[in-house]
């Protein structure tokens, strides 16, 4: 209102002085100001209708405390360039109460898709939701703002940095293929014997491993785990219960410690199969390299808190949100939430 008020005051002053001194140039100025006032109001409404913005990707990955590039697509359906629309972005972690709001100014030419990049430096690992909340367009003279509410969202999966826990395998027997293994895998509760060897197809699985008959029957692709693969991996069950009061900084430590443990375990096996419960569903994911680690964390970030108390699983290791790392009944390490990063950097964990 201030700008319109100032403008109207200016028009009134111009009008008054033009009349009092009968100055033709001021009259021209006055008529131009009045004309522009009307045109700018129309242009503002026009921009509101013709400018659109959206995230071209639903999900993108970034690393904690690093600049993560996110893209935003601006598109003008009309025939006029939009000078400087203001885009309001809301950023928040899932467990965060307050949303961080940032405002940026864009611009778009007519008939062109303009992709702009902005950089987010997230302080914590975890799922960071970025929401385009509002597009505020102005006319060329910034007199008439026109708001348009948006609910476009994208997820920035902020991965913990690839810090690796130093793990010393105390009594791991040598395995075929040079790998070592300490104990035989224990049958998993909650998964049928047939399903224990089968899993849904993931990109990267060899065609040899696809269970064609079952896939044809169920109309989904299933992969078979071969015995030698089973021999070359650890299993880790995650307990994600009791997370209601966890804040982003707590989750950050959890993800940091989990990532370090996974990377540390991968030093000793080709893969780590992680089991956890997503709401009412049981999930498992094999982590073997950077790509699968990225995908694992994304799936983990998308998971809902487990309903009720999950059934106990018999896996090589277990890790919970209280940062307790166990192997069977034995505690490998209880991380200190305030000092976990130092522990990861300095401590050698014996399994």
């Amino acid at each position, binding site marked *: 209102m201030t700008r319109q008020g100032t403008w109207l005051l*200016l028009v009134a*002053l111009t*009008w*008054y*002085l*033009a*009349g*009092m*001194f*009968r*100055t*033709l*140039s*001021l*009259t*021209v*100025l*006055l*008529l*131009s100001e009045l*004309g*522009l006032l009307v*045109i700018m109001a129309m242009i503002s409404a026009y921009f509101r209708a013709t400018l659109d913005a959206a995230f071209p990707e639903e999900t993108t990955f970034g690393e904690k405390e690093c600049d993560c590039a996110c893209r*935003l697509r601006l598109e003008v359906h009309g025939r006029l*360039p939009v*000078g*400087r629309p203001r885009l309001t*972005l809301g*950023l928040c972690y899932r467990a965060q109460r307050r949303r*961080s709001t940032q*405002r*940026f*100014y*864009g*611009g*778009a*030419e007519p008939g062109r898709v*303009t*992709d*702009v*990049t*902005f*950089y*987010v*430096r997230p*302080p*914590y690992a975890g799922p*960071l939701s970025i929401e385009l909340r509002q597009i505020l367009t*102005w006319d*060329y*003279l*910034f007199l008439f703002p026109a708001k348009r509410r948006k609910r476009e969202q994208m997820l920035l999966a902020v991965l913990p940095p690839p810090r690796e826990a130093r793990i010393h395998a105390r009594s791991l027997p040598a395995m075929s293929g040079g790998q070592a293994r300490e104990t035989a895998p224990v049958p998993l509760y909650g998964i049928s014997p047939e399903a224990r060897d089968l899993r849904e197809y993931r990109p990267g699985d060899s065609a040899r491993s696809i269970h064609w008959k079952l896939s044809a029957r169920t109309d989904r692709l299933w992969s078979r785990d071969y015995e030698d693969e089973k021999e070359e991996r650890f299993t880790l069950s995650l307990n994600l219960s009791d997370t209601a009061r966890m804040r982003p*900084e*707590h989750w*950050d*430590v959890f993800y940091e410690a989990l990532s370090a443990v996974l990377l540390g375990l991968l030093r000793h096996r080709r893969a780590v199969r992680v089991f956890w419960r997503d709401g009412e569903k049981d999930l498992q994911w094999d982590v073997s390299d950077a790509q699968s680690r990225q995908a694992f964390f994304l799936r983990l970030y998308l998971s809902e808190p487990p309903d009720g108390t999950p059934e106990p699983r018999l896996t090589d290791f277990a890790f919970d949100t209280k940062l307790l790392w166990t192997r069977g009944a034995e505690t490998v390490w209880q991380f200190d*939430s*305030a000092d*976990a*990063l130092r522990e990861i950097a300095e401590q050698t964990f014996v399994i």
Partner: protein
Amino acid sequence: MSRKARIIVHTGREASEPPAPAHLLLLLSGVCALLLPSADGLAYSVPRTILLAVSLCVCLWSVARIGWRWAVLCSMLCAALWCAACVLLQDELSVQLAGAVRLLLLTHEDGYTVQFDLAAALIAVFLVLLFFSSELLIGSHVIPYSITLAVFLLGPLIGLQPSIEAAVLALLFQFCYWAMNGSGMRQSPFDFALPSRARLTALTGAVMSLTLAVVLLLAVPLALRNDERLYQPAYAAEGFLRRTVSRLSGSDATPVTGGNLNRGNQYPTGTTHLILTADRRPTAPVYLRGFSGGDYGYRGWDWSIETEVQIFRDMASDRLTGWETAASEAELLTANIYKQFDGLYWRRNSGSGERIRLAVQNGNRDFLDAYRPYYSVWNAERLRFINRYMDGPVYSFYEQSDLSIDWDAPGAVTDLWIETHYYQHCLEPYTRVPVERLPRLAKLCRENPLTDTDEITAFILHTLQSRASYSLTPGWTPFNRDTVEYFLFDNGLGYCQHFASAATLMYRLYGIPARYATGYIARPEDFLSVQGMLDSSYPADPMELAEGAQFAILSDFSAHAWVEIFLPGYGWTPVEVTPAADGSIMPNYPGLNLDLLAQRLAELKFSFPASDGRRAPGNAEQSLFASMTTGMSRKARKTVLDALKALPLFLPVPVVLAFLYRRRRKLSRYARADCRVSFGRLLSMTRFAGLLTDCDGQEADFPARLSAAVPGISEADAARLCRTAEAAAYGPGGIPDEANGFARELCRRAAESLYGKLNLRKRFLFRWWHAYA
């Protein structure tokens, strides 16, 4: 656990784009808009000053294209040089600036000129530096916008009337720069790093310019044709405010008297000021004088009482010449002469007409000012027909038509002596004019020497009719202008105060004693009978009113100003010089030969009195221009004339724009050209560069020769281009886009390579005329 931290978001934008040519154009328009409106009397070369500003602008802009740091350094260097110039030339500069201040703020004397070359040059440099720094280095449009706005809005206060072309330039600068700056030309951490920010900025500026052009195309004719109508809302608003304030403060009941010349508009409220009761209805307007002006000054007219006292003292000293008398006797004699002069003409009237008795009651009953009719005496006793509630003086007076002074009657010797001596002594003080304040008016009278009173009156009427029109809302007089000069020679609009002042000064310049008088005018139609009063809001009880009495209620609408000239034999006589509603002026004073007046006015090509309220045009206006500008106000016509005179200065602009448009079209056509066109273009540009002039592109060794002549092209590329062009010309099918793109790219590389080999003239033609690069 990590401590609580913020999510940092940024756009990664680091560098600012170099300024576009549009920025230079807008910068120039802003500076030129301020340098164009020069005041009369400031002697400096506008083209030279503008050339200096343009050169500096172009230099700074070019440096900014190279790099912003260089631009900052260059600006600082220029600022340092500017400061040094100011210090070194301070003596001359201070003289020029002091002269300009005197010219703009204190006076507006005709012929007073100030040499302003140095100051204008320094002001131009200062403006360029300020605008360049604000717009391009800091990225703020506020200061330049405010400066241009202030010059345009406040200029008229000191009589600067910016031309339409200056207004167009200022608008272009103000709004287009606003839009372009708004599109994020300058670096800002909150602006996304757009892939083509410069293009977007230019596009925004172009759209805004186009919008402004459309608005101006509509606004200029509308302003020229309807300027008076457009001003009316401003007057209505000001009138409403002033009437409201005066009613609330009670000043609306204050009598209109005094010699202050209003420099603004007049907004009467309709509040009752005087109630007149006459024993019969007058046949001509009755002038009730409350003030007579002596000397003319900046604020208007001084009260004449001191002049009058001096005149009577001089007359007393004439009478006492050779006598040895005390000062007290002289004072007594002065008072006696004054007393005798007061009713002199009433006493000496020998006409057959009956006197009129008139009671003048002030509306709020506490006025100390007396409003007295001409040729009157004060009646001490209350008259029978006066309502008992009424208060105020009662006068007996003769109407001018009933006046017939008999100087041969017995006892008239003393009165004649008084009349004659008064005339002798009033000649000097009442023909005094501050000529230095009124150079144009003095010149006008000097160039038209006249002696006969009727001829002088005719000339004054002609001048007023030809140069001015009546309006209660003539606008403001600039602070540094004389009100009468501005009214008569610039604005051409005014009301009774302005007409009367101008006429008074003109009478004085011709040597006729004249005074500016203010008071009220009661026209015959203002008087109503008892029955008429019953229907009005007259406050008295009609039952107590005498039969046949006439009443008039005068409000500030009846407040008036007129000229009174001293006619020997008739004394101070009112002369009406304010036009009536139909534009005609009907002066009347004893001895005025109306036939002669009409004849003189006819000779001066003016209708008198005008039958339709419109003036006949003069010969000078019988032109094509006059017919084109029919319906426009005088100021609008003058502005159009000025704009037409300045048109040649702006002719290069469309030429340059057309040139740039042609180049742009060529470039966009080449950007879509197929390989055959690109091949032809390549041949054409090599020939222009003086290479391969003997080739037509079909020679077997053409690729090798092309490669040798143009360093940026390999022989393989040249051979591929030839093959593609041949296939396009003689082949069966269409050309793939990839081949066309290759040809265009090769052409671009060749242009870049050839451009460096050309001399300056050929470079210009290569780039701007042929649009090869």
